[in-house]
């Protein structure tokens, strides 16, 4: 734990004054969070849950970002979406967002409007225990509030974009609140991208899936090369609800994706899958807490990591099965391939099981590309870059085997191909 320096605390208090006006209903919560933050400080490598991620330079950029960048980042519009919500340096961008129909069937608003119309909803906010989450509570500038009404199935995905640009030593703190009412369904494609400025992106999302609701959540974390990314998600599932998430982590200097899932009803199912592609100097951290609180819910985690020379990754997956949660099936598989011995992959699966009628499996491996398979391909005429690329793609594809939407698969494949092209994997 690193305690906040006095100058950082002053800065925080000043910044707090600055953001108060954005979400007046959250004022008390912010003050409370600030007091807690002064006690907890920020996590550092001596904290067990944060031992692989170096946050030492984040304290200095805890304050909120400056305004709009001078150069508007290039945008690639996607066809076939129900809407796009874009945040530019932590502020909602009217210019880059669009409603392609979702506004007609769901309630999509900014957090400020949501709190203004329903001040009590702030009670459902997670204040946070660790410094990173607390900082978000203290300084959040807004976020997306989405409610999909009962029985509404939205076929076309909603895009949620976070773009950060010209934000050296600045931070973005956003809080999203997503709720799917009983029987509703949606796909969200969430993007994080930015330029080469040294920013910190700190996003907390709270997702609630009522009975029978289904959410598919695709996340592409491709932050700028000098960025720090911390995202925290809380997902609650009622009976029969289904949450399928896939996260592709490939950008940023240090990126951590942290998900806590609570399965609170029978026949609920959550899959938290992910692919981390690490290049030199990067740290990619994935933390999953899967909590089975009642009987009859299932979960699965499939995580794959590919690390080029000098990259670091950590996967920490905790499965907690409470005493009452009988007939739980919970699986976890995390595998990493090191393309060079200078890379480091850490895997820490944890099973905490209190019920006695459960099926839990977990497997963690760290290895290299199969030499025999590689020689077979070389002996058939493939050059080393092509051969390794094929093997890497085959390995990586295990993490998105659950996805059958061709557009999403194309998107993921394009990202993986661009990573392969950048990394000379035949080294």
């Amino acid at each position, binding site marked *: 734990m690193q305690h906040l320096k006095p100058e950082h605390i002053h800065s925080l208090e000043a910044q707090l004054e600055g953001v108060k006006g954005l979400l007046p209903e959250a004022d008390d919560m912010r003050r409370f969070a600030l007091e807690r933050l002064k006690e907890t400080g920020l996590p550092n490598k001596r904290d067990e849950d944060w031992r692989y991620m170096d946050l030492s330079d984040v304290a200095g950029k805890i304050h909120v970002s400056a305004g709009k960048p001078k150069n508007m980042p290039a945008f690639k519009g996607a066809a076939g979406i129900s809407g796009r919500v874009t945040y530019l340096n932590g502020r909602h961008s009217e210019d880059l967002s669009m409603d392609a129909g979702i506004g007609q069937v769901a309630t999509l608003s900014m957090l400020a409007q949501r709190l203004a119309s329903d001040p009590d909803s702030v009670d459902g906010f997670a204040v946070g225990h660790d410094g990173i989450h607390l900082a978000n509570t203290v300084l959040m500038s807004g976020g997306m509030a989405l409610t999909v009404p009962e029985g509404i199935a939205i076929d076309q995905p909603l895009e949620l974009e976070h773009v950060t640009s010209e934000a050296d030593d600045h931070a973005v703190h956003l809080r999203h609140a997503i709720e799917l009412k009983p029987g509703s369904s949606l796909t969200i494609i969430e993007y994080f991208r930015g330029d080469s400025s040294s920013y910190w992106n700190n996003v907390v999302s709270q997702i609630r899936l009522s009975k029978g609701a289904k959410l598919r959540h695709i996340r592409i974390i491709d932050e700028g090369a000098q960025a720090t990314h911390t995202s925290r998600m809380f997902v609650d599932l009622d009976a029969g609800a289904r949450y399928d998430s896939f996260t592709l982590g490939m950008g940023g200097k240090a990126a951590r994706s942290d998900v806590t899932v609570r399965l609170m009803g029978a026949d609920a199912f959550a899959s938290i899958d992910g692919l981390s592609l690490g290049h030199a100097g990067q740290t990619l951290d994935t933390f999953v807490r899967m909590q089975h609180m009642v009987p009859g819910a299932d979960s699965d985690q499939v995580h794959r990591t590919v690390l080029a020379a000098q990259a670091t990754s950590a996967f920490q997956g905790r499965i907690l099965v409470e005493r009452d949660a009988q007939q739980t099936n919970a699986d976890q598989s995390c595998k990493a391939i090191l393309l060079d011995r200078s890379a480091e992959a850490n895997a820490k699966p944890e099973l905490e099981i209190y019920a006695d009628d459960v099926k839990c499996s977990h497997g963690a491996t760290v290895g290299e590309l199969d030499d025999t398979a590689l020689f077979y391909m070389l002996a058939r005429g493939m050059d080393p870059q092509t051969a390794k690329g094929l093997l890497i793609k085959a390995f990586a*594809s295990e993490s998105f085997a659950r996805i059958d939407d061709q557009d999403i698969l194309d998107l993921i494949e394009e990202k993986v191909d661009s990573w392969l092209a950048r990394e000379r994997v035949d080294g």
Partner: protein
Amino acid sequence: MKRKSSLELALKAVLDRKFETMLKIEKLNVSVGETQILKNLDLEIKAGEVHAIMGPNGTGKSTLANTIAGRSDYEVGSGSISFMGEDLLAKEPHERAAEGIFLGFQYPVEIPGVSNLNFLRTALNSQRRHRGEDDMSAAEFMKLVRAKADELGLKPEMLKRFVNVGFSGGEKKRNEMVQMAVLNPTLAVLDETDSGLDIDALKVVSDGINAQRRDDTAILLITHYQRLLDYVQPDFIHVMSGGKIVKSGDKSLALELEEEGYAAFEA
């Protein structure tokens, strides 16, 4: 001087190639780790020839095959291999393949996650690019691979499966032959391609091998069993023992081996 007609020139070219040395191995010494396996091995294969190498386990037959293909575990201490007049040992495995060498693996490798079609198409186009040719069109490729698979008794749906995953031993060997047919090598080195095959598979695989016999190609068969040589009749048979070739002869040597066993030829 009378100018040669185009027919005479063509005939001359064919005759020249037929007697052209394709592979020349001279005093080859190869080790794996601390153990020396090949000891001053000599071998010459000319275009249009089929050679068979026979011998008990452990004499270095597979080592020879893998050395020709360029497997890095096999260290060449001294000696030379020239292929089509060029220094083969100076080339990387994928270059050797693109320049016409095919190794039929004794134990074909399983590659989960990569389909047979993807594997073969990528290999073929990598080779073509190396040779400065355009990629083969998807349609042409599918037509070619389906035809070859059909000839070798592999059902079309097997091509969609992952490389050799769930294939029986015989199916893996047939798959090797499909790959050979599509890649159309100049020199095919087939390492115990006949092992584990029942009679029907053996006939089909032999047909595949015989389809590769041309004036401008050569085949090196590595085998334990005389059986294959009934179907693929070799021009030369060599017996290996103690890391070198100890006896060479024509196809009648196979019968001699059958009757007397390898002990008669031990180094």
